[in-house]
């Protein structure tokens, strides 16, 4: 991908780009949090107001999906969401690299989610009860089969979380790079500047159309995808955590009722 994409303008020697720009995200988030909480007031203004709205929105989402139980996991969910959203939007700034366009960053986030929801489930229900729920409400003879299938499906979760975020971001970057750099700067605008008259006319018009298309359509699309991917990552995290918590009730219900309890 280095063939078609411009390397970022700011690089530290010996340190990979995605690590450098993860630090940029960390600095930005820390600065915003510091500015928001430096001078707390009862009637919020400015940065504090903005961050309160953001956190309240995330809390509202948690209440809708997980119920009031889920408010305990607000720090984990909000941190993941803000980090991924900032990293996604950072990759849209020209000359910056996106941390989420690298498999290492997205795999780190997905592994944090994977271990966190298992830890939450085990701490909530105890290890044995939690393991029992992997078998599901099936007859005893089918339980080993269900157990294996469930283990595989749980192992596929971090993989799909990783690849979804990574693939969406990298796919968008390749699209932008090909349309803007390969087709635009190298192709059409290079043709316009080559000196020939038809090249100047066709290449100039094509270059103009390309710039309008990129700025007017592809960039807003990438912003939408950034927001949507951060939302989906957070949403799936909440679903996994609520699945790890709620399986207790479901399991007990089917244990007592046996057939009448579940539907």
């Amino acid at each position, binding site marked *: *991908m280095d063939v078609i994409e411009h390397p970022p303008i700011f690089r530290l020697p010996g340190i990979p780009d995605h690590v450098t720009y993860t630090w940029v995200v960390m600095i930005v988030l820390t600065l915003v949090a510091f500015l928001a909480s430096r001078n707390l007031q009862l009637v919020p203004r400015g940065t504090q107001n903005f961050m309160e709205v953001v956190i309240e929105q995330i809390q509202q989402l948690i209440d*809708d*999906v997980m119920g009031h139980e889920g408010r305990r996991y607000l720090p984990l969910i909000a941190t993941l969401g803000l980090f991924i959203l900032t990293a996604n939007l950072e990759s849209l700034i020209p000359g910056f690299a996106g941390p989420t366009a690298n498999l290492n960053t997205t795999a780190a986030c997905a592994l944090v989610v994977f271990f966190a929801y298992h830890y939450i489930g085990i701490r909530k229900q105890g290890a044995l009860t939690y393991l029992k729920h992997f078998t599901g409400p099936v007859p005893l003879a089918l339980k080993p089969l269900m157990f294996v299938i469930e283990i595989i499906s749980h192992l596929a979760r971090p993989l*799909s979380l990783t*690849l*979804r975020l*990574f*693939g*969406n971001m*990298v*796919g968008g970057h390749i699209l932008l790079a090909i349309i803007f750099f390969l087709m635009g700067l190298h192709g059409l605008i290079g043709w316009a500047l080559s000196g020939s008259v038809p090249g100047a006319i066709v290449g100039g018009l094509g270059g103009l159309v390309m710039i309008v298309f990129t700025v007017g359509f592809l960039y807003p699309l990438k912003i939408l995808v950034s927001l*949507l991917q951060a*939302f*989906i990552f957070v*949403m*799936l995290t909440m*679903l996994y955590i609520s699945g790890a918590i709620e399986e207790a009730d479901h399991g007990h219900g089917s244990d007592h009722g046996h057939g009448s309890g579940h539907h």
Partner: protein
Amino acid sequence: MRRSLILAAMAVLAGPGLAFGQTAGAADPRGWLGPFAVLVAGFAMAFAAGLCGLGQGRAVAAAVDAMARQPGAAARIQTAMIIGLALIESLAIYVLVVAMILLFVQPIR
């Protein structure tokens, strides 16, 4: 008829691979699989995008239908639709990742 068409398609597909293999020789680090990898990556992405579009279209159609019948539940339906779309889309994203592995990494030569 159909078999001959398939054979012709296979011959056309195999052409660049064999030609590149003969001209490039041992000096090419990409080996004779390189052109095939490019072809396969492109076709895989085309099939995946088309079928993923079909699946997402069905999902969105059902969701919009449900939202038109029950405007009160539109927000919940929309959330469920977005999650479902993400899960469908991740299948196409898997193919994109495989295509990029074929294009840029090329583990088998």
